[in-house]
């Protein structure tokens, strides 16, 4: 092996430098004169809130966007990257946050896609499979080349993405929030792979807003705020809370102490609840939970283990095949969603853009979506437009929604502001129970902090809250008790003070904790 070769046989990238990158979208300056540099053998974190311009910068590096201005230097030589193909040819690979895999194709087919074949226009999947196995051996990535993507777990799919990049000769890998979809154990395995790659001379760019991961795995960190670079530091020179403040530009509350609140009677009781998925296979089996007044019950689990179906079964959006949903003392199992709403159950849906609001309606209209048909928003079938206007102005003010006016279309707001509109609508009616599904997914640190504060205030007022989340940090931050769901079954419930990420991670993977 020569000096500048990687174990995969490809050439190393010693330095890659972005100089003065600017990207203008109509009305937005997404990147403003950003400099960024990454070297062989380091993990360089790119940190910033949503909309800070991290993804834009990386899409420019990967050739998906053309920069309005700026230059790229590879090993000191200026290069131009006009398409992903150019980037790949220069040894730059990208693992996207949403995997770029074709589910109905096999691992080998996904890897071979877009590459010239050694047999001309015929595919050469046997050779591709062989090379995949070689790479898997070198980098310790266990994978079956003939498996279909849909058969693989999320962690395995990520390995396919890495192999795909290595196969194409990637010496530099852009990792866009790679841990967002993994269990804690999968994250550990992933970090081992990352360390191995760095030791072998790869350069890695790690995009994340999970600060503890950056502290764990990265050598240097560059912070972006509002499209501009704030600075670059060695991770060893900075603490976690300094990093958080640096990113947001102000003090951030990192951990909260939950005040002692006397838990009231059970407001929402699920008894042996079962329902089917969209495909007709069982999604929930025998789920029993009690959520009390004045508590937040966090429901942790890996995506797709019945969380969505549970929320829909409770809110009447999905047919219950077995068991009961009891709201206070009333059995509401087969009630229509409207009737459940009337009984003061509020729902913050996972897909806020699709299920939480109507994009083409104004903010004012979205604010009264749930109660537009009843007094005081409607009288004798007529909308009380003045009342609605006053109500929405109040809420915009109280919840700090950043919008030009109440007449603005909801779809044009940012993710954080849309969630504020949904929260405002669901909370302002003083619900008895709140079902909050992934309430902060995709939100930045500031907006997440706000949503948590709102949920905690509801908890103080005695509302029973079921918070479904795939983010363990969030679950551990504000839940009184934590239930873990795996394949539609509750693996166990632990009080907050007994929960550790390891313990929850095992339960998320389907291990039932030992009785003590």
């Amino acid at each position: 092996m020569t000096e500048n070769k990687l174990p995969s046989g490809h050439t190393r990238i010693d330095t890659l430098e972005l100089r003065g990158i600017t990207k203008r979208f109509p009305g937005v300056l997404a990147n403003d004169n950003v400099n960024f540099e990454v070297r062989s053998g380091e993990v360089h974190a790119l940190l910033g809130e949503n909309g800070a311009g991290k993804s834009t910068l990386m899409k420019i590096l990967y050739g998906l966007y053309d920069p309005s201005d700026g230059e790229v230097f590879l090993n000191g030589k200026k290069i131009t990257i006009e398409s992903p193909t150019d980037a790949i040819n220069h040894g730059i690979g990208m693992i996207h946050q949403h995997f770029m895999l074709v589910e109905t194709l096999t691992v080998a087919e996904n890897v071979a896609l877009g590459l010239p074949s050694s047999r001309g226009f015929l595919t050469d999947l046997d050779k591709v499979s062989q090379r995949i196995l070689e790479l898997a051996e070198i980098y310790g990535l266990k994978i079956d080349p003939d498996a279909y993507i849909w058969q693989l777990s999320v962690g395995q799919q990520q390995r396919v993405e890495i192999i795909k990049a290595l196969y194409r000769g990637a010496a530099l890998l852009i990792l866009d929030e790679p841990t967002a979809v993994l269990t804690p154990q999968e994250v550990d395995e992933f970090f081992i792979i990352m360390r191995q790659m760095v030791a072998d001379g790869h350069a890695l760019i790690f995009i994340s807003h999970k600060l503890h991961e950056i502290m764990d795995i990265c050598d240097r960190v560059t912070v972006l705020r509002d499209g501009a670079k704030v600075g670059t530091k060695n991770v060893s020179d900075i603490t976690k809370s300094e990093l958080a403040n640096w990113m947001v530009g102000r003090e951030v509350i990192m951990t909260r102490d939950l005040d002692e609140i006397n838990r009231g009677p059970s407001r929402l009781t699920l008894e042996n609840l079962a329902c089917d998925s969209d495909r007709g296979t069982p999604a929930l089996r025998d789920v029993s939970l009690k959520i009390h007044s004045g508590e937040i019950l966090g429901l942790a689990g890996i995506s797709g283990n019945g969380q969505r179906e549970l929320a829909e079964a409770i809110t009447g959006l999905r047919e219950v095949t077995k068991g009961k949903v009891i709201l206070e003392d009333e059995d509401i199992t087969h009630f229509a969603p409207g009737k459940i709403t009337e009984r003061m159950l509020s729902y913050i849906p996972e897909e806020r853009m699709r299920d939480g609001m109507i994009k083409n309606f104004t903010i004012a209209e979205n604010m009264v979506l749930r109660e537009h048909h009843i007094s005081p928003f409607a009288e004798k079938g007529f909308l009380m437009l003045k009342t609605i206007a006053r109500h929405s102005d109040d809420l915009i003010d109280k919840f700090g929604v950043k919008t030009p006016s109440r007449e603005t279309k909801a779809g044009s707001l940012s993710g954080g502001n849309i969630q504020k509109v949904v929260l405002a609508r669901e909370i302002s009616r003083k619900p008895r129970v709140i079902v909050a599904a992934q309430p902060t997914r995709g939100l930045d640190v500031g907006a997440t902090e706000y949503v948590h504060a709102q949920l905690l205030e509801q908890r103080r007022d005695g509302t029973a809250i079921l918070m479904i989340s795939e983010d363990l940090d969030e679950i551990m931050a504000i839940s009184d008790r934590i239930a873990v769901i795996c394949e539609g079954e509750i693996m166990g419930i632990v009080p907050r003070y007994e929960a550790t990420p390891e313990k929850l991670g095992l339960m998320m993977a389907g291990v039932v904790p030992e009785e003590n």
Partner: protein
Amino acid sequence: MTPELVIIGILTSGIRLATPYLYAAIGETFGQRSGVLNLGVDGQMLLGAFAGFYVAFTTGSLELGLLAAILVGAVMGLAMAFVTVNLQAEQGISGIGFYLFGLGMSELLFKMLLGTVETVKGFPSLHIPFLGDIPVLGEIFFQHNVMVYGAFLLVPVAWFVLNKTTLGLKIHSVGENPEAADSLGVSVARIRYFTIILGGILSGVAGASLSIALLNVFQQNMTSGLGFIAVALVYFGAWRPWGVLAGALLFSMVNSLQLWMQVLNIPIPTEIAIMLPYILTIVVLVITVSRVRSPSALTKPFDRGE
């Protein structure tokens, strides 16, 4: 007529009648596999049928007629591709637009250039030596004209291209996850242009197979919705050429059966008999479609989002 002869007759004409379904549905399969629903097949067929017939009628050359149908189909496909890929039009609606254009245009050209129903001498039967001499089977399968053989040959060729070539892999990925394909340097636009134009060509050939190989006339709206059944066959065949073949045979056999019922004066009203294949379409689709998943990106325009 003996029952044996009737059965042979039904099977023989069933094979013949599968021809236009096969060309059109295999073309549509390529389009849908790449994520494009083309509802304009019937219109493309009508223009192909007219072009094929008119050129064959005026020049006396069936080969030139076929070439004209191919060209017209390609131009229609090119227009469809531009509207679908570049303008990102709603595919269901633009397809209907192309259908209506083909329907109206073929009628207009017919009135302007021909005026009356004429006939041509279509492609002659090609008795395949040896195979064509096998009793019964030879008559059913191996005494057809060249366009019939072409349609059946297309099935394994399409299967091979879709499953064994790098092009097939690209088509599949563009129809399932265009973002993924794009991120690997596969040009979504180029692949879709290719499949839509290929679909247009095969639709044109399907039309010509009616006007210069099977019926050997051109009449207004002579396809009478055959192109729409071809679209349904793609669903029926679960986006696989062999499945499409099975569907095409099912429909052509039923069609052949109803034609023979009329020939044999079986006392069923003609209208009911003619309806049979269409009723079958609906019944079969209801039964089969929920079974398989369509390509994920079907009808979805691709936009890199810049």
